[in-house]
Protein backbone atom coordinates (compact mmCIF):
# COMPACT_ATOMS: atom_id res chain seq x y z
CA UNK A 1 0.00 0.00 0.00
CA UNK A 2 2.22 2.84 -1.20
CA UNK A 3 1.51 4.66 -4.48
CA UNK A 4 -1.82 2.92 -4.88
CA UNK A 5 -3.63 4.77 -2.12
CA UNK A 6 -4.33 8.06 -3.93
CA UNK A 7 -6.33 6.47 -6.82
CA UNK A 8 -8.27 4.42 -4.27
CA UNK A 9 -9.20 7.56 -2.32
CA UNK A 10 -10.29 9.31 -5.52
CA UNK A 11 -12.34 6.29 -6.57
CA UNK A 12 -14.00 6.23 -3.13
CA UNK A 13 -14.77 9.93 -3.50
CA UNK A 14 -16.40 9.51 -6.91
CA UNK A 15 -18.68 6.62 -5.88
CA UNK A 16 -19.63 8.46 -2.69
CA UNK A 17 -20.42 11.72 -4.47
CA UNK A 18 -22.65 10.27 -7.20
CA UNK A 19 -25.51 9.06 -4.94
CA UNK A 20 -25.35 12.37 -3.08
CA UNK A 21 -25.50 14.40 -6.27
CA UNK A 22 -27.85 12.54 -8.64
CA UNK A 23 -31.18 13.05 -6.80
CA UNK A 24 -30.39 16.65 -5.90
CA UNK A 25 -29.54 17.50 -9.47
CA UNK A 26 -32.46 15.75 -11.16
CA UNK A 27 -35.32 15.81 -8.64
CA UNK A 28 -35.04 19.57 -8.01
CA UNK A 29 -35.67 20.18 -11.71
CA UNK A 30 -38.97 18.34 -11.89
CA UNK A 31 -42.46 18.69 -10.55
CA UNK A 32 -42.81 15.62 -8.38
CA UNK A 33 -46.08 13.65 -8.13
CA UNK A 34 -47.78 14.09 -4.76
CA UNK A 35 -47.33 10.45 -3.73
CA UNK A 36 -43.56 10.82 -4.21
CA UNK A 37 -43.52 13.97 -2.07
CA UNK A 38 -45.44 12.10 0.64
CA UNK A 39 -43.02 9.19 0.36
CA UNK A 40 -39.98 11.45 0.61
CA UNK A 41 -41.58 13.15 3.61
CA UNK A 42 -41.46 9.81 5.48
CA UNK A 43 -37.78 9.24 4.66
CA UNK A 44 -36.23 11.30 7.51
CA UNK A 45 -38.25 9.53 10.22
CA UNK A 46 -37.51 6.17 8.62
CA UNK A 47 -33.77 6.78 8.22
CA UNK A 48 -33.28 8.25 11.70
CA UNK A 49 -35.07 5.33 13.31
CA UNK A 50 -33.08 2.85 11.21
CA UNK A 51 -29.85 4.56 12.23
CA UNK A 52 -30.60 4.83 15.95
CA UNK A 53 -32.27 1.62 17.06
CA UNK A 54 -29.77 -0.97 15.76
CA UNK A 55 -26.94 1.19 17.17
CA UNK A 56 -28.59 1.06 20.60
CA UNK A 57 -29.50 -2.62 20.87
CA UNK A 58 -26.92 -4.45 18.74
CA UNK A 59 -23.15 -4.69 18.83
CA UNK A 60 -20.23 -6.72 17.51
CA UNK A 61 -19.36 -8.25 14.16
CA UNK A 62 -21.45 -10.22 13.29
CA UNK A 63 -24.02 -8.14 15.12
CA UNK A 64 -26.00 -9.60 18.01
CA UNK A 65 -28.59 -8.22 20.42
CA UNK A 66 -27.32 -6.69 23.67
CA UNK A 67 -29.65 -5.10 26.20
CA UNK A 68 -27.16 -4.12 28.89
CA UNK A 69 -25.24 -1.36 27.09
CA UNK A 70 -25.20 2.17 28.57
CA UNK A 71 -26.04 3.46 25.05
CA UNK A 72 -29.54 2.02 25.35
CA UNK A 73 -30.25 2.94 28.97
CA UNK A 74 -29.05 6.52 28.53
CA UNK A 75 -31.24 6.80 25.43
CA UNK A 76 -34.44 6.46 27.48
CA UNK A 77 -34.05 9.56 29.73
CA UNK A 78 -32.55 11.38 26.74
CA UNK A 79 -35.66 10.57 24.69
CA UNK A 80 -37.97 11.70 27.49
CA UNK A 81 -36.02 14.94 27.80
CA UNK A 82 -36.27 15.51 24.04
CA UNK A 83 -40.04 14.83 24.06
CA UNK A 84 -40.61 17.21 26.98
CA UNK A 85 -38.38 20.11 25.97
CA UNK A 86 -37.98 19.70 22.18
CA UNK A 87 -34.59 21.33 22.69
CA UNK A 88 -31.80 19.98 20.49
CA UNK A 89 -28.98 21.66 22.42
CA UNK A 90 -30.41 20.59 25.78
CA UNK A 91 -30.88 17.02 24.62
CA UNK A 92 -27.30 16.76 23.36
CA UNK A 93 -25.88 18.15 26.62
CA UNK A 94 -28.10 15.94 28.81
CA UNK A 95 -27.32 12.85 26.74
CA UNK A 96 -23.59 13.47 26.93
CA UNK A 97 -23.69 14.18 30.68
CA UNK A 98 -25.72 11.04 31.44
CA UNK A 99 -23.51 8.90 29.23
CA UNK A 100 -20.39 10.27 30.87
CA UNK A 101 -21.81 9.62 34.35
CA UNK A 102 -22.89 6.08 33.49
CA UNK A 103 -19.67 5.06 31.74
CA UNK A 104 -17.47 6.57 34.47
CA UNK A 105 -19.23 5.44 37.62
CA UNK A 106 -20.61 2.14 36.49
Amino acid sequence: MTGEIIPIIIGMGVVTYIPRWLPLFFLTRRRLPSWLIDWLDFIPAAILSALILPALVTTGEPRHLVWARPDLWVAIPTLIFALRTRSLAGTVVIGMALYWLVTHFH
Partner: protein
Amino acid sequence: MVSDFFDASEDWGKAVREGLSAAWPICLGYIAIGLAFGVIARKMGLHPLEIGLMSLVVYAGSSQFIAAAMLGAGAGFLPVVLTTFSVNLRHLLMSSSLSLYLKNLSGSRLSLFAYGVTDESFALNMSRFQAGNWGWRSALVVNHATNLTWFISTVAGGIGGQFIPAGAFGIDYALTAMFICLLVFQIRGIYHALVALFSGVVAVILSLMIPGNSYILITAFLAASAGLCIRKTGLQKNRPEGGR
Protein backbone atom coordinates in the same frame (compact mmCIF):
# COMPACT_ATOMS: atom_id res chain seq x y z
CA MET B 1 -18.34 32.99 -11.18
CA VAL B 2 -17.32 33.59 -7.58
CA SER B 3 -19.38 36.77 -7.32
CA ASP B 4 -22.32 34.97 -8.90
CA PHE B 5 -21.99 32.24 -6.31
CA PHE B 6 -21.56 34.38 -3.22
CA ASP B 7 -24.37 36.86 -3.81
CA ALA B 8 -25.68 39.39 -1.27
CA SER B 9 -23.11 39.29 1.50
CA GLU B 10 -25.55 40.14 4.30
CA ASP B 11 -27.41 36.89 3.51
CA TRP B 12 -24.18 34.98 3.97
CA GLY B 13 -23.37 36.70 7.25
CA LYS B 14 -26.73 35.62 8.65
CA ALA B 15 -26.29 32.14 7.20
CA VAL B 16 -22.88 31.70 8.80
CA ARG B 17 -24.27 32.71 12.22
CA GLU B 18 -27.33 30.45 11.87
CA GLY B 19 -25.39 27.56 10.41
CA LEU B 20 -22.68 27.56 13.05
CA SER B 21 -25.11 27.83 15.94
CA ALA B 22 -27.01 24.83 14.53
CA ALA B 23 -23.98 22.72 13.62
CA TRP B 24 -22.22 22.44 16.99
CA PRO B 25 -23.73 19.12 18.12
CA ILE B 26 -22.52 17.54 14.87
CA CYS B 27 -19.10 19.13 15.28
CA LEU B 28 -18.78 17.72 18.81
CA GLY B 29 -19.62 14.26 17.57
CA TYR B 30 -17.26 14.55 14.61
CA ILE B 31 -14.40 15.57 16.89
CA ALA B 32 -14.84 12.35 18.85
CA ILE B 33 -15.31 10.07 15.85
CA GLY B 34 -12.76 11.94 13.73
CA LEU B 35 -10.01 11.58 16.33
CA ALA B 36 -10.84 7.88 16.66
CA PHE B 37 -10.73 7.46 12.89
CA GLY B 38 -7.37 9.23 12.68
CA VAL B 39 -5.86 6.96 15.32
CA ILE B 40 -7.16 3.80 13.65
CA ALA B 41 -6.25 4.88 10.12
CA ARG B 42 -2.72 5.68 11.28
CA LYS B 43 -2.49 2.21 12.84
CA MET B 44 -3.62 0.76 9.51
CA GLY B 45 -0.69 2.48 7.82
CA LEU B 46 -2.21 5.66 6.39
CA HIS B 47 -0.13 8.83 6.50
CA PRO B 48 -1.84 11.89 8.10
CA LEU B 49 -1.83 13.52 4.64
CA GLU B 50 -3.64 10.51 3.17
CA ILE B 51 -6.07 10.62 6.09
CA GLY B 52 -6.75 14.30 5.37
CA LEU B 53 -7.16 13.68 1.67
CA MET B 54 -9.64 10.88 2.33
CA SER B 55 -11.64 13.07 4.72
CA LEU B 56 -11.83 15.81 2.09
CA VAL B 57 -12.50 13.68 -0.97
CA VAL B 58 -14.76 11.01 0.52
CA TYR B 59 -16.20 12.68 3.64
CA ALA B 60 -18.28 9.75 4.88
CA GLY B 61 -17.34 8.46 8.32
CA SER B 62 -18.40 4.84 8.45
CA SER B 63 -17.12 4.06 4.95
CA GLN B 64 -13.77 5.61 5.87
CA PHE B 65 -13.45 3.31 8.89
CA ILE B 66 -14.22 0.29 6.71
CA ALA B 67 -11.84 1.44 3.97
CA ALA B 68 -9.01 1.98 6.49
CA ALA B 69 -9.51 -1.52 7.84
CA MET B 70 -9.57 -2.99 4.32
CA LEU B 71 -6.47 -1.06 3.26
CA GLY B 72 -4.72 -2.20 6.42
CA ALA B 73 -5.56 -5.77 5.44
CA GLY B 74 -4.03 -5.16 1.99
CA ALA B 75 -7.21 -4.84 -0.09
CA GLY B 76 -6.88 -3.19 -3.53
CA PHE B 77 -8.77 -0.63 -5.61
CA LEU B 78 -11.90 -2.54 -6.63
CA PRO B 79 -12.88 -4.13 -3.28
CA VAL B 80 -12.41 -0.87 -1.39
CA VAL B 81 -14.22 1.31 -3.94
CA LEU B 82 -17.15 -1.12 -4.35
CA THR B 83 -17.54 -1.47 -0.58
CA THR B 84 -17.48 2.31 -0.22
CA PHE B 85 -20.16 2.60 -2.89
CA SER B 86 -22.49 0.15 -1.16
CA VAL B 87 -21.91 1.69 2.28
CA ASN B 88 -22.66 5.21 1.01
CA LEU B 89 -25.57 4.39 -1.29
CA ARG B 90 -27.98 5.36 1.50
CA HIS B 91 -27.25 9.04 0.75
CA LEU B 92 -29.39 8.55 -2.38
CA LEU B 93 -32.53 8.64 -0.22
CA MET B 94 -31.30 11.57 1.83
CA SER B 95 -30.54 13.71 -1.21
CA SER B 96 -33.91 12.76 -2.70
CA SER B 97 -35.62 13.94 0.45
CA LEU B 98 -33.57 17.15 0.62
CA SER B 99 -34.42 17.94 -3.02
CA LEU B 100 -37.92 18.96 -1.90
CA TYR B 101 -36.39 22.01 -0.21
CA LEU B 102 -33.69 22.95 -2.71
CA LYS B 103 -35.76 23.86 -5.75
CA ASN B 104 -34.58 26.75 -7.95
CA LEU B 105 -30.95 26.34 -6.90
CA SER B 106 -28.35 26.57 -9.67
CA GLY B 107 -26.50 23.46 -10.77
CA SER B 108 -23.19 24.55 -9.28
CA ARG B 109 -24.78 25.31 -5.91
CA LEU B 110 -26.56 21.96 -5.88
CA SER B 111 -23.30 20.23 -6.76
CA LEU B 112 -21.54 21.93 -3.87
CA PHE B 113 -24.41 21.13 -1.53
CA ALA B 114 -24.40 17.46 -2.54
CA TYR B 115 -20.80 17.10 -1.37
CA GLY B 116 -21.81 17.76 2.24
CA VAL B 117 -24.81 15.43 2.55
CA THR B 118 -24.13 13.12 5.51
CA ASP B 119 -26.42 11.26 7.93
CA GLU B 120 -25.91 14.07 10.41
CA SER B 121 -26.17 17.16 8.17
CA PHE B 122 -29.18 15.60 6.44
CA ALA B 123 -31.02 14.99 9.70
CA LEU B 124 -30.29 18.46 11.04
CA ASN B 125 -30.99 20.42 7.86
CA MET B 126 -34.15 18.43 7.16
CA SER B 127 -35.67 19.28 10.55
CA ARG B 128 -34.77 22.95 10.02
CA PHE B 129 -36.19 23.05 6.50
CA GLN B 130 -39.44 21.51 7.71
CA ALA B 131 -39.69 24.03 10.54
CA GLY B 132 -39.43 26.82 7.93
CA ASN B 133 -37.13 29.88 7.95
CA TRP B 134 -34.10 27.79 6.99
CA GLY B 135 -32.27 28.84 3.84
CA TRP B 136 -29.99 26.83 1.60
CA ARG B 137 -27.10 29.10 2.62
CA SER B 138 -27.48 28.19 6.30
CA ALA B 139 -27.75 24.53 5.32
CA LEU B 140 -24.59 24.84 3.23
CA VAL B 141 -22.78 26.40 6.20
CA VAL B 142 -23.83 23.39 8.32
CA ASN B 143 -22.45 21.05 5.64
CA HIS B 144 -19.11 22.76 5.37
CA ALA B 145 -18.55 23.63 9.03
CA THR B 146 -19.05 19.97 9.87
CA ASN B 147 -16.86 18.92 6.95
CA LEU B 148 -14.04 21.18 8.18
CA THR B 149 -14.41 19.76 11.70
CA TRP B 150 -14.23 16.23 10.31
CA PHE B 151 -11.13 17.05 8.26
CA ILE B 152 -9.25 18.66 11.15
CA SER B 153 -10.24 16.00 13.70
CA THR B 154 -9.24 13.06 11.51
CA VAL B 155 -5.85 14.60 10.68
CA ALA B 156 -5.29 15.53 14.34
CA GLY B 157 -6.17 11.97 15.32
CA GLY B 158 -3.68 10.67 12.77
CA ILE B 159 -0.93 12.91 14.12
CA GLY B 160 -1.40 12.61 17.88
CA GLY B 161 -4.77 11.04 18.69
CA GLN B 162 -3.33 8.33 20.90
CA PHE B 163 -2.62 10.99 23.55
CA ILE B 164 -6.26 12.05 23.86
CA PRO B 165 -8.27 10.20 26.52
CA ALA B 166 -11.12 8.22 25.00
CA GLY B 167 -14.68 9.02 26.02
CA ALA B 168 -14.00 12.41 27.62
CA PHE B 169 -17.17 14.21 28.82
CA GLY B 170 -19.51 11.75 27.13
CA ILE B 171 -18.61 13.26 23.77
CA ASP B 172 -19.07 9.82 22.18
CA TYR B 173 -22.79 10.18 22.82
CA ALA B 174 -23.26 13.60 21.17
CA LEU B 175 -24.47 12.26 17.82
CA THR B 176 -26.73 9.61 19.34
CA ALA B 177 -28.42 12.23 21.53
CA MET B 178 -28.76 14.55 18.54
CA PHE B 179 -30.33 11.80 16.43
CA ILE B 180 -32.79 10.98 19.22
CA CYS B 181 -33.97 14.59 19.40
CA LEU B 182 -34.13 14.96 15.61
CA LEU B 183 -36.23 11.80 15.45
CA VAL B 184 -38.59 13.37 17.99
CA PHE B 185 -38.87 16.40 15.68
CA GLN B 186 -39.78 14.06 12.80
CA ILE B 187 -42.73 12.51 14.64
CA ARG B 188 -45.28 15.01 13.34
CA GLY B 189 -48.33 12.77 13.59
CA ILE B 190 -49.51 9.21 13.84
CA TYR B 191 -48.21 8.20 10.39
CA HIS B 192 -44.69 9.41 11.06
CA ALA B 193 -44.76 7.66 14.44
CA LEU B 194 -45.82 4.41 12.78
CA VAL B 195 -43.12 4.76 10.10
CA ALA B 196 -40.45 5.34 12.76
CA LEU B 197 -41.63 2.39 14.85
CA PHE B 198 -41.81 0.08 11.83
CA SER B 199 -38.43 1.27 10.60
CA GLY B 200 -36.73 0.77 13.97
CA VAL B 201 -38.00 -2.77 14.40
CA VAL B 202 -37.25 -3.82 10.80
CA ALA B 203 -33.80 -2.19 10.98
CA VAL B 204 -32.89 -4.17 14.10
CA ILE B 205 -34.07 -7.43 12.52
CA LEU B 206 -32.31 -6.80 9.20
CA SER B 207 -29.13 -5.56 10.89
CA LEU B 208 -28.90 -8.91 12.68
CA MET B 209 -29.41 -10.79 9.41
CA ILE B 210 -27.31 -8.82 6.88
CA PRO B 211 -23.70 -7.77 7.45
CA GLY B 212 -22.72 -4.23 6.51
CA ASN B 213 -25.08 -1.27 6.63
CA SER B 214 -27.29 -1.88 3.59
CA TYR B 215 -30.10 -2.52 6.08
CA ILE B 216 -30.44 1.26 6.52
CA LEU B 217 -31.27 1.86 2.87
CA ILE B 218 -33.53 -1.20 2.58
CA THR B 219 -35.37 -0.43 5.82
CA ALA B 220 -35.92 3.26 5.06
CA PHE B 221 -37.26 2.37 1.62
CA LEU B 222 -39.65 -0.23 3.07
CA ALA B 223 -40.77 1.94 5.99
CA ALA B 224 -41.52 5.02 3.86
CA SER B 225 -43.45 2.84 1.41
CA ALA B 226 -45.39 1.24 4.26
CA GLY B 227 -46.17 4.73 5.55
CA LEU B 228 -47.54 5.70 2.16
CA CYS B 229 -49.80 2.60 2.10
CA ILE B 230 -51.07 3.20 5.64
CA ARG B 231 -51.79 6.85 4.91
CA LYS B 232 -53.70 5.98 1.72
CA THR B 233 -55.90 3.35 3.38
CA GLY B 234 -56.32 5.55 6.46
CA LEU B 235 -57.53 8.46 4.34
CA GLN B 236 -60.02 6.25 2.50
CA LYS B 237 -61.49 4.98 5.76
CA ASN B 238 -61.91 8.49 7.09
CA ARG B 239 -63.58 9.77 3.93
CA PRO B 240 -67.24 10.66 4.58
CA GLU B 241 -69.88 8.24 3.28
CA GLY B 242 -70.72 8.82 -0.39
CA GLY B 243 -68.10 11.52 -0.73
CA ARG B 244 -66.10 11.58 -3.92
